């Protein structure tokens, strides 16, 4: 029984990789090959699909737009969540528990509920079709998440650290930036990872709030599928490329992930 333990994760990983392989496989095929034959690997290997994406500006600006608002959102979310998480982990104040639950309820709000009002709201403040609009709208679910994760990490830092620093004559902000933040870098790393992840994978709000100038790559893909026939190869190539940023980020935080989950947050 013990001997075959490795089989379980292996089979699971094969199951996970199959659709990804199929996507990659399609992305290296020509459209005629995709439509006319069923092949397990590309017979006429081609890079044309990728070439098109990297040379056509409607395609590659989609990637730039996505990365732009995702990074912006990650910075805003973490910067705003840091002091708030500190307050929740260290102090009792009027309405703290209710405020915490209220924040979490926003993580629970179905984006479909918010799509139309967001469109009207961001149009009325003249932010429609800007990167800022998408970055701000993603704060709706990323800030609560960031506060939740960071609070967990901060609560595991003993309070004596704060008190010793004050005794040593540190002012609050000097302590916060010079001592406290460096002790929870792992937590900040994990938080940024999750903010990045949830902003990167979200499409409904990003698509609703943009038209041309800030259009995310994922929305560009929907357009291909619907209007210009069924260019499966191109679609597959664009899809394969969206996996790369996530894979890079995972590789860098792989050691922190287990630790972050162990604290029972996220």
């Amino acid at each position, binding site marked *: 029984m013990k001997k075959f333990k*490795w*089989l*379980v*994760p292996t089979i699971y*990983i094969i199951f*996970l*990789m*199959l*659709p*990804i392989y*199929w*996507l990659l496989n*399609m992305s290296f095929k020509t459209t005629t090959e*995709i439509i006319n034959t*069923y092949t*397990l690997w590309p017979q006429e290997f081609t890079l044309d699909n990728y070439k098109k994406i990297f040379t056509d500006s409607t395609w590659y600006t989609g990637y730039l737009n996505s990365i732009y608002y995702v990074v912006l959102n990650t910075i*805003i979310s973490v910067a705003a*969540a840091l*002091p*708030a998480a500190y*307050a929740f982990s*260290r*102090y*009792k*104040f*009027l309405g703290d528990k209710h*405020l915490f639950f209220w924040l979490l*309820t*926003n993580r*629970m709000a*179905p*984006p*479909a*509920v918010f*799509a*139309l*009002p967001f469109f*009207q709201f961001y149009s009325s403040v003249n932010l429609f079709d800007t990167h800022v609009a998408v970055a*701000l709208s993603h704060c709706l679910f990323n*800030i*609560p998440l960031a506060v939740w994760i960071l609070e967990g990490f901060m609560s595991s830092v003993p309070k004596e650290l704060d008190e010793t620093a004050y005794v040593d004559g540190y002012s609050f902000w000097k302590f916060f930036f010079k001592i406290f933040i460096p002790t929870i870098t792992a937590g900040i790393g994990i938080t940024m990872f999750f903010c990045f*992840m949830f902003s*990167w*994978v979200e*499409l409904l709000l990003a698509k609703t709030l943009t038209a041309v100038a800030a259009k995310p790559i*994922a929305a560009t*893909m929907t357009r291909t*599928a619907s209007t210009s026939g069924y260019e499966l190869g191109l679609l597959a190539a664009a*899809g394969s490329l*969206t*996996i790369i*940023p*996530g894979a890079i980020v*995972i590789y860098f935080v*792989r*050691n922190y*992930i*287990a630790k972050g*989950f*162990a604290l029972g947050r996220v």
Partner: protein
Amino acid sequence: MNKTVNQKAWFFVIPVFVLVAFNAIIPLMTVVNYAFQETFGNNQFMWEGTRWFKQILISERFHAALGRQVLFTLIILAIQIPLGIFIALNMPKEGLGVPICLVLMSMPLLIPWNVVGAMWNIFALPDIGFLGHSLNALGFDYNFTQQSGDAWFTTILMDVWHWTSLVVLLSYAGLRSIQPAYYQAAEIDGATRWAVFRHIELPKMKKVLTIAILLRFMDSFMIYTEPFVLTGGGPGNATAFLSIDLVKMALGQFDLGPAAAMSLIYFFIVLTVCWVFYNLMMRNESNS
């Protein structure tokens, strides 16, 4: 940790409060506005009271969408939670296998949701997709764009593919926090594999599992993009879950009143379930 009372802490919370309120309260008020009034554009509103709510609550369309949604979420939880625990129990505990498993298993979590839908569409197409082609070659009559049973099967398989890893990672993290001494003690007592799981591993995973169930409930109950890209809610309305039906009503047919009323009912259901879970979770935390 014993916390000190300090009302000035509110100043630390203000940025978060403002940013979230900006996004949550103003748009939510718009929804409330539409839910109780009839609009003819140009900012003209007529009071309708609870008419839209009554209309939605008795409409068969809403009942059907809600039924599909509840069934889908229950199936997802029934498959993903046990499967996730099972895989986590069999993961390597040390060595090179650990980072390989973690990185490869996290991959599906970081793929944009519409790419997940598109990928599975390509994967499951009956003529050129690996899954569809294989199933048909094995003699099954499989076509997810035309048969609702197949559409359900594909949607569920896609979600299992997409999200089981989250349960695996959470359970794995919970298992890692168990000290080896517990296992040694169990071995001396001659405990069976099942007893070790039931009395050592499961209690240690209780906290992370509550979070896993909560997250999986919320996200599967709000699912939109993946089935929308995969099946478009079809064939017919077979996989039109709540969010898909809602967007169809609001942006497709522009029935703003009923759509807004439906949004509020929808949000209320999610909120109630999460409130119950949240309280359970907090009680667990204060017990341990």
